């Protein structure tokens, strides 16, 4: 009897997938973490002790995107209550966080001179920037085969931000669909100017894509900078060899291995390998072996003692970097006044929550299992019914 009842409950508590103002209202009403969110962005200035800058929180800009693409800029709030009420009332489809500015965002004086005073160091990595190296998906899609590219981006950047730059307060968040965002919140990070932000972004930049360049990764010099070397030996090499080769079948077809051969600056070697593999088309090796085998052959050829030419010295690493190294959106990081989507928003297209990702466990993160708005509401319903039934209704 009870069992039957439960089934009935499940049937009635499930909420159809969707994204709309009604759903959001409930989400903002019951689930969005207003308190923690506001506290984070106050950086202690919401306290009572004399060191607090009372005006700080009110000078932070937010922007809301409402239903029907109505865009509201220069939203600011002097207290968590004010923020919470505004969000609940307006039900924004998207919330962006901007920098705290010199003047109150609502400055009425007419000169809307909006000068950022400080700003978190932010990064935005989008998997659609990797479309030329993933065959399983393209554009906005993401699956378990290509998502790991994001995982290693997190690993590499997180390690460097901590070890090289000495930052500690780093928040990683799922962007809701196809990427990750990074918020570096140390006060030292917030005080960086545009030039310094650009320098950090350039430090991280390896991939220089352009239509005219065939080869987008160029690692000159007899050895790699310690940061790149560490990234390669700790993360990229095994990811490429153990996971990506196979999951993306990088050598399985002529079209695919041609792309890799195009990265080899020596035409003779490239054609030698090409001819060798073309000949093997009808061999009985299983798909698995093909990728690993061909990669080994390529490595052996390039790294053999015969190859003295300068351009070839780092070719193997260049190939690995081309396929795996993080590709940042430089513009996002370079400018203090760039707005970025807030964590805990819901992505309109997928309904998924922009949840934080723990960099120490990022291997376990699976974007396809991130809770959606409708799932959460379903759970709320079930919870409500459950507690109702407990109360004897």
């Amino acid at each position, binding site marked *: 009897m009870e069992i039957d009842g439960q089934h009935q409950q499940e049937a009635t508590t499930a909420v159809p997938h969707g994204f709309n103002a009604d759903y959001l209202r409930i989400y903002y009403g019951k689930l969005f973490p207003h308190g923690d969110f506001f506290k984070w962005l106050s950086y202690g200035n919401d306290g009572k002790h004399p060191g607090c800058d009372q005006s700080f929180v009110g000078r932070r800009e937010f922007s809301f995107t409402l239903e029907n693409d109505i865009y509201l800029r220069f939203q600011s709030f002097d207290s968590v209550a004010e923020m919470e009420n505004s969000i609940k009332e307006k039900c924004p489809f998207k919330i962006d966080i901007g920098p705290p500015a010199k003047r109150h965002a609502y400055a009425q004086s007419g000169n809307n001179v909006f000068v950022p005073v400080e700003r978190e160091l932010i990064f935005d990595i989008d998997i659609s920037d990797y479309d030329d190296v993933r065959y399983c998906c393209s554009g906005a899609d993401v699956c378990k085969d290509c998502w790991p590219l994001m995982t290693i981006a997190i690993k590499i950047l997180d390690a460097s931000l901590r*070890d090289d730059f*000495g930052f500690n307060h780093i928040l990683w968040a799922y962007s809701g669909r196809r990427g990750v965002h990074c918020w570096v919140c140390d006060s030292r990070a917030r005080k960086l100017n545009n030039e310094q932000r650009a320098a950090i972004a350039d430090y991280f930049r390896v991939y220089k894509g352009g239509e005219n360049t065939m080869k987008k990764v160029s690692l000159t*010099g007899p050895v*790699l900078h*310690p940061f790149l*070397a560490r990234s390669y030996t700790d993360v990229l090499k095994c990811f490429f060899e153990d996971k990506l080769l196979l999951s993306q079948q990088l050598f399985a077809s002529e079209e695919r291995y041609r792309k890799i051969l195009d990265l080899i600056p020596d035409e003779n070697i490239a054609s030698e390998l090409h001819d060798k593999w073309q000949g093997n088309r009808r061999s009985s090796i299983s798909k698995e072996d093909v990728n690993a085998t061909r990669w080994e052959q390529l490595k052996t050829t390039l790294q053999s003692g015969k190859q003295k030419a300068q351009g070839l010295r780092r070719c193997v690493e260049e190939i690995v970097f081309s396929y795996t190294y993080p590709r940042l959106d430089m513009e996002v990081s370079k400018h203090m006044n760039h707005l970025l989507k807030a964590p805990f928003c819901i992505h309109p297209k997928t309904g998924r929550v922009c949840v934080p990702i723990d960099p120490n466990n990022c291997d376990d993160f699976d974007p396809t299992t991130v809770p959606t708005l409708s799932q959460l509401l379903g759970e709320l319903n079930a919870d409500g019914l459950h507690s109702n039934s407990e109360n004897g209704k």
Partner: protein
Amino acid sequence: MEIVRSHRQIAAAAAGGGGGDGGGRAGGLPTYRLAPQLEVRLEEFELFAIDRLGVLKGIADGLSRGKRPEEMEKLVNELWKARMRRQDPAETLNKDIISHFVLRLVYCRTEELRKWFLSMETTLFRYRFRLESHESQRMLMSEFQLPYKALPHLEFEAVKDKLSQVARSIGQSATVESVFFKVPFEEVPDLVASRRVFLSKGYAYVAMSQVVSLVVTQFRCNISKALVLTNRKWMATIKEEEKDRLTPIVEALSNAYFGPDYSQPKDAVEISLKDIDQLARTSFPLCMRHMLEKLRENHHLKHGGRMQFGLFLKGAGLKLEDALAFWRAEFSQKVGSERFDKEYAYSIRHNYGKEGKRTDYTPYSCQKIISATPGVGDHHGCPYRHFGEENLRAALNKMGVSGHPLEEIMDKVKNRHYQVLNLTVLASIGNLLNFDHLNHLKYEIHS
């Protein structure tokens, strides 16, 4: 007396500020921050400036010949000794400061002059800094607000391997410099951006040679601002006030020289830098003209173009030194001279058989050029083959080919008879008389 006074006023005005000492230490390297309160005779006004100009000219020449840093250091030392150094170090300092400020007047007056002066003075400063003692260098660093403390020995030993790795990664020798500074990474954004420093826990480990760059950048910035101010003062008051005395001297000095010096003795079978542009107009085949044009326009050519055009020039008799100067003059405008030296100079020397397996490469034959397949962004290959009809017509028009000869050529192109076209073109613009040129330009023409 009057002259002396005037100069002081001018110098003071020129510095855009008050008096004070010349911003130098006795026997040290002045930073020219403030105009000196010094007495100088009118003849010295001119002579000091001319001597310094000789130094700057020598530097310009050395740079355009692609001299390596060690060679430049030596050159600067020699030039300074020959033209500026006096028995009494105080007199040398005197001359140093005065000549600098006089040349500011001379070179502040147009954008081009300022650019040249800034570039040469900065280079002079850079190499003089390198020649100073460690003690003197540290004092200068403080003056430029770079009060870095040298890394203590123990800490140095702990990170030595990493420092060596960074040095090798940017193409330097594995032997690490002995003096390093630990600075917050925020202070050296350029070095961070180009991964030229080791970073750890928010600190950058900066080598002495890199500190030189920082100092020089500051120096350059200061002089740049000063030149603009000087120009304003010049235009506002000085030029008019001194129109009977100093102004003519200043103007004469600036006409005496500026720009890179390409003068070379002319030889029957050689061409020099100066000749290139002119020869391009009269005797170059279309492909080479096109590449020269693109090179001048973009300050860059991709590999295919560098090979085809570079070897052509070599075959025409352009010497290695001149070739280096030529490519450097263009490329450094786009990628900077450091990058040119590192990434492009090698292959130019290689083409002349001075590196690697030392093959003295010959220029490409028409056949080879015609069969090339230029890609996006390339400008080599044979334009008769690869240019669209409109573009080809336009290019030939520009050369002065029109009417019946033009139609004849377009006809041949349609039928893919690419050979011989260059001869036809040159004949039609009446330059077949320059057949000698054609010969010594050494491109093979299939008949």
